């Protein structure tokens, strides 16, 4: 494969060399089961507990409050379904319209089992209305689940304010922090449950964690040997956990430098794309993750745009209906009121720690040409 310019880091990221190096010994050499009593087992246990302590320290919580999972989908499901099932007298859950499907579908699944779900609206930038949240909280509300930063448009929620409201009303607060973790500082003091995935931060796929504060009771989803303090059975994925911890440490160590670079790229991308006629920025201009830019182009369809860019070695993604298995445009873009034709023409560009100025230059050189090419064959022309 020729050199690819990978601008789809919200989908997944390459494993960092440092992370791979940290993981490698735990495949063929230190392969022990962390539950075993012998030396091999103890080595694995130690690696896992060191990783747990590293992550806990980064979040300012106690190591026992970190539960390793197979990724963020499991972590989100464990948070939402786990807390609901710990309260079998049923109850009420609050979430928002722009959550990841791992949260939305878990909530819908509960809805089919007698729980009630309120799905909060978002404004044109993707932020929830705090007054609407306050009004939605009831006597029987078990959980508020609002993501920290959106995976499609990058919009950040007022997490601090949300957590204060939840605390005051005595409701547990869960946040899907998959995109935000390692990119912004999170007020973990006031968050009860927080889900993270390794592969979004230059770690391996198939591993993540749920931060669960001590006061929160959860019913496990997986039953077996009682691993992870009985909250998640299954032999620990030692290399994965070591990789997750290494990726997390790397992200926090480099956070200032990496996100400053990402913000610079983002400003350049937005300015250059704004100069193309018939475009719009989707999401919040300032309260936004540093690595995600979402834009729409009038008169062209997103899947074609992704394929054209791919032809030039540039990898991006779209919220277009044609790229989804349901042939419906992204629920996030529709929720923030992007006109449907513009939702079809959306493009998500997401940078990573490996993204260079040169990558951005090349992308910005090719993008206007590709847009022009697709507009030339479209029946809808952009009025100047």
């Amino acid at each position, binding site marked *: 494969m020729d050199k690819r310019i990978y601008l789809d880091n919200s989908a997944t990221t390459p494993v960092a060399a440092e992370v791979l190096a940290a993981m490698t010994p735990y495949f063929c050499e230190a392969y022990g089961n962390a539950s075993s009593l012998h030396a091999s087992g103890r080595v694995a246990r130690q690696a896992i507990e060191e990783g747990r302590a590293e992550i806990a320290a980064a979040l300012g919580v106690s190591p026992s409050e970190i539960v390793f999972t197979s990724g963020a989908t499991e972590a989100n499901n464990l948070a939402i379904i786990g807390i609901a099932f710990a309260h079998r007298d049923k109850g009420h859950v609050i979430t928002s319209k722009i959550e990841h499907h791992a949260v939305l579908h878990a909530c819908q699944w509960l809805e089919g089992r007698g729980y009630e779900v309120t799905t909060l609206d978002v404004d044109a930038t993707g932020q929830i209305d705090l007054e609407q949240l306050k009004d939605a909280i009831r006597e029987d509300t078990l959980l508020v689940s609002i993501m920290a930063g959106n995976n499609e448009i990058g919009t950040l929620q007022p997490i601090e304010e949300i957590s204060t409201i939840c605390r005051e009303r005595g409701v547990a607060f869960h946040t899907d922090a998959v995109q935000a973790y390692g990119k912004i500082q999170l007020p973990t003091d006031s968050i009860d449950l927080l889900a993270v995935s390794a592969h979004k931060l230059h770690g391996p796929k198939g591993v993540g964690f749920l931060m669960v504060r001590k006061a929160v009771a959860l019913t496990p989803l997986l039953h077996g040997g009682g691993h992870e303090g009985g909250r998640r059975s299954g032999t620990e994925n030692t290399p994965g956990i070591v990789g997750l911890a290494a990726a997390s440490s790397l992200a926090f160590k480099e956070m200032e430098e990496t996100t400053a670079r990402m913000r610079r790229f983002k400003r350049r991308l937005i300015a250059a794309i704004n100069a193309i006629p018939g475009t719009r920025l989707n999401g919040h201009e300032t309260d936004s993750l540093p690595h995600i830019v979402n834009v729409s182009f*009038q*008169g*062209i*369809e997103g*899947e*074609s745009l992704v*394929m054209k860019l791919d*032809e030039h070695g540039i990898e991006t993604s779209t919220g*277009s*209906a*044609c*790229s989804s*298995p349901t*042939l419906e*445009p992204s629920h996030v873009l*529709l929720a923030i*009121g992007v*006109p*449907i*034709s513009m939702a*079809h023409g959306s493009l998500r560009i997401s940078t990573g720690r490996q993204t260079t100025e040169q990558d951005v230059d090349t992308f910005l050189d090719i993008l206007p040409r590709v847009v022009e090419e697709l507009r*030339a*064959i*479209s*029946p*809808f*022309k*952009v*009025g100047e």
Partner: protein
Amino acid sequence: MKVYTEKVIEHFRHPHNMGKLRDYSAVGKVGNIICGDVMWLYIKVDKDPKGRDIISDISWETFGCTAAIATSSMISEIAKGKTLKEAIAITNKNVADELDGLPPIKMHCSALAADALNEAIYEYLTQNQQEIPDALKRRHERIAKEMASLEERYQAFFTKGQVANEAKSVSREEYTPD
């Protein structure tokens, strides 16, 4: 999830007969921007030496995905030079087969291309007060009905007035290939 054939990719990268004919006899317009696929197919009809109506030139403008663009290109290649009678017989299966197949979820794109050709021929025959074959007429009625029900369905789904209005007001300029 979906894999495009080499031929689909080839037609997408280098589409044939794209743009708008300078001097066309009829145009078939199908699809709806709300659904994410719109295809306008232009045909120029002339007499061949035997006096039969043939599609002497053809072009298209498409808003849509990779498959929509590739099927536009392919149907224009298949129909070019055919008599109207032969062109009427072109089906969406012909288009998909010539592209070595389409992912199941994208089969509707080939239907859109066949429908656009149908509508262009229907418009040509109507304008020239020629007899319209039953099969063509039936397909025209089916297409008109589908377009109406789609619009209805989506207007109901997206209750916000701006969506419906915006779909209608997308500006349109004449495009003339050099």
